[in-house]
């Protein structure tokens, strides 16, 4: 019986086996991601509150969102964080990759040291940050005092709390560094050699050869960072609960408050879907813009 169900070609059998082995992921994806994804879409059109009857209210939740100052404020905070943190993370991770790309004594240790922090979870980073950025008593301001600079109040200041979060985002540059390292290793040496023959200095070689060859990795990393920035939550949850004075009220944290403090699940679902659509639209925009500037060495269209 089983034998009759097996595909007759090798390729067919391989495909079947691949699907069988991948099936746990498919099942998990269906139950834990796809299911909730569409359930949240349905609930966003209802007054779902976990308990009691769920009533269809059409677009009412979406209409409320546009009148909700705090939701708009949370979107602005998220945009601020995204716009600042992505370029900074890209620059720092690329700089780290360039620094440790060439073999030197201790380069492996340097790579490991830069990568290691990205393995620690957000809660660990938050706990550490509460000590480092704790007013004048914190490590950051002590360091600044050594060079006669009076540091800000960091997490206690509505003006500085978001920039502090941006700085904390640099904790994970190790992952980006690994990506850029791999991309740097694949920059064709003949192009760099040709540039040297043409008399290009190191800055010109980086700008005209290395950077274009890294552009696919930069685009990929930008999209990863973009999605992560839209989902920033842990640091707010552990460190500030959205404060001081709503300065770190990011959208996912606001959604959490709506869902689990106020039980307004339908409304929270609508907010989640708006965030998802914004993430999707922004990613599509970045891809559209990026495709004009990204250089693919083996792109068939480019080769023509």
């Amino acid at each position, binding site marked *: 019986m089983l034998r009759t169900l097996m595909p007759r070609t090798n390729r067919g059998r391989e495909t079947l086996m691949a699907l069988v082995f991948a099936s746990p992921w498919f099942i998990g994806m269906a139950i834990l991601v796809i299911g909730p994804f569409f359930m949240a879409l349905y609930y966003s059109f209802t*007054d779902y509150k976990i308990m009691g009857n769920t009533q269809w209210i059409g677009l009412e939740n979406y209409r409320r969102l546009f009148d909700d100052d705090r939701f708009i404020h949370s979107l602005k905070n998220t945009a601020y964080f995204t716009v600042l943190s992505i370029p900074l993370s890209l620059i720092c991770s690329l700089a780290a990759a360039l620094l440790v790309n060439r073999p030197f004594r201790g380069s492996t240790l340097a790579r490991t040291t830069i990568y290691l922090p990205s393995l620690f979870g957000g809660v660990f980073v938050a706990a550490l940050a509460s000590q480092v950025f704790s007013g*004048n008593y*914190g490590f950051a301001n002590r360091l600044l005092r050594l060079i006669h600079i009076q540091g800000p109040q960091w997490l*206690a200041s509505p003006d500085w709390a978001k920039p502090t979060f941006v700085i904390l985002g640099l904790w994970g540059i190790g992952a980006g560094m690994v990506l850029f390292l791999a991309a740097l290793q694949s920059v064709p040496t003949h192009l760099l050699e040709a540039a040297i023959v043409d008399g290009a200095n190191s800055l010109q070689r980086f700008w005209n050869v290395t950077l274009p060859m890294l552009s696919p990795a930069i685009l990929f990393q930008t999209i990863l960072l973009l999605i992560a920035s839209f989902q920033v939550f842990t640091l707010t949850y552990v460190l500030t609960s959205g404060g001081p*004075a709503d300065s770190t009220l990011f959208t996912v944290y606001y959604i959490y408050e709506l869902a689990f403090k106020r039980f307004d699940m339908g409304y929270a679902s609508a907010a989640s879907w708006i965030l998802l659509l914004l993430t999707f639209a922004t990613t599509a925009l970045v891809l559209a813009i990026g495709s004009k500037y990204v250089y693919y060495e083996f792109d068939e269209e480019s080769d023509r």
Partner: protein
Amino acid sequence: MNSYWGKNFTRRSMLRSSGKLVAAAGLVGATSQVSRFSPEARAEVLAKAKAFQDRPVTITAIQPVSPTATSDDYGIAFQEVYNRFMDAYPEIGVEFAYSPWEEYTQSLSVAIGGGNAPDVATWIDDQRIPSLAANGFLRTVNDLAAADGMDLAEIDPVALSSNTFAGNVYGLPYYWDDRIFYHNTDHFSEAGITTPPTTWQEAVAMGEQLDIKDGDSYARIGYIPLSPAGGPGAGGNSYLFLYGWQNGGRFVSDDLATVTVNDPAIVEALAWCVEVSDKYGGAEEQANFIAQAARGTNPFLTGSVSMMTQPTGFGVGSVDASEAPVNWAVSASPYNTTPATWSGVLSTALPVGSQHPDEAWELAKFMASPEIQTYFAETLAWIPTRRALWETIPAFATDPELIVGLAEFSNTHIRPPLPNSQELWDEVLRASDAALYHQASPQEALDKANEIIQAGLDKYLLNS
């Protein structure tokens, strides 16, 4: 009313002489560093709990404390209560499910909504009960009490009203506190101050006498009424609710249908809090002061702040148990137009969908019983919601902190039990922060809060 207990009667000296130490609790969880339970006593409680395994019926209690060999006293005290319950009910076992306090509402609501409700919520406060009740997460208990012959009139009506929503009672309160005024008696002696303040104006003036400046910043702050939420602020456990009531304000109308957090008296109270805060450099500078002078802990414990509002039990539970305890005394909170304080209430509530509702009710009833409230009072210095017990507990007649705290219950308020009680709390705190950080004027901040809370309340009233 404004009882004053001088240096000769400080609680610490009394404790030393009596050789007893009890741990007390603010609702936010003051942690005792000196345990009332010896290692042997802890081991005994935990061993006894193990011996009760494999009962015919086992009920699950969700709580933000856990009993271990090194846990705080609350976890051990709760396990001892469960042990006594299991002694009294041989057919029923009790096991606990831990949830951190910050995630308690989330854990409980998700478990109930997911069809995996714990049988009983044994540590739940008055801020959460109305909101959980309004959203259908809790069972009523007044009908169960009536059927069981339990007289709810034996429980203080104010404490009980905090759990009452739409005419039904949703939790059996077993403990409550109120806010009183703590001051450092050494600082008072240094400054030649002999009695604590009775009004806001006196508190601010005495605070200035007690301040110690170090260049442009402060080495010691005498008094700040209100700090931003979410940290060990110089303002202690006070919140705008306290000052609103002390200025004659009302947060909600009597029929609980109209929100009035922008009542002129409350706006005025917030403006006063901001004015005093600004005198000390504003909220940001105070955060720095806390970080520097108090190293992230409560600044009263390090002698960095001379006067502070805290729940009854703070003195013996936190100040005396701190690494370098300060000498302190207590009095009623200073006020502006109206003597007032406010209470937090802890209760046992019954989640909807419990697997063992009858056994869960027995535990809820047991925890509110005179026996257990007396045990909590003697062990943790917790104040019973059964007022009749106050006269039977010796420490309540001799302990200065408790005497002031008990007297102040005549002026106490509870947070209005609105269906959006969590929203009321969050928005009032948010408005306070916005004003303290000068993101909005007190009037603007409270107008905005009023609008949001009223909208939430209207939504509920419309649907009900």
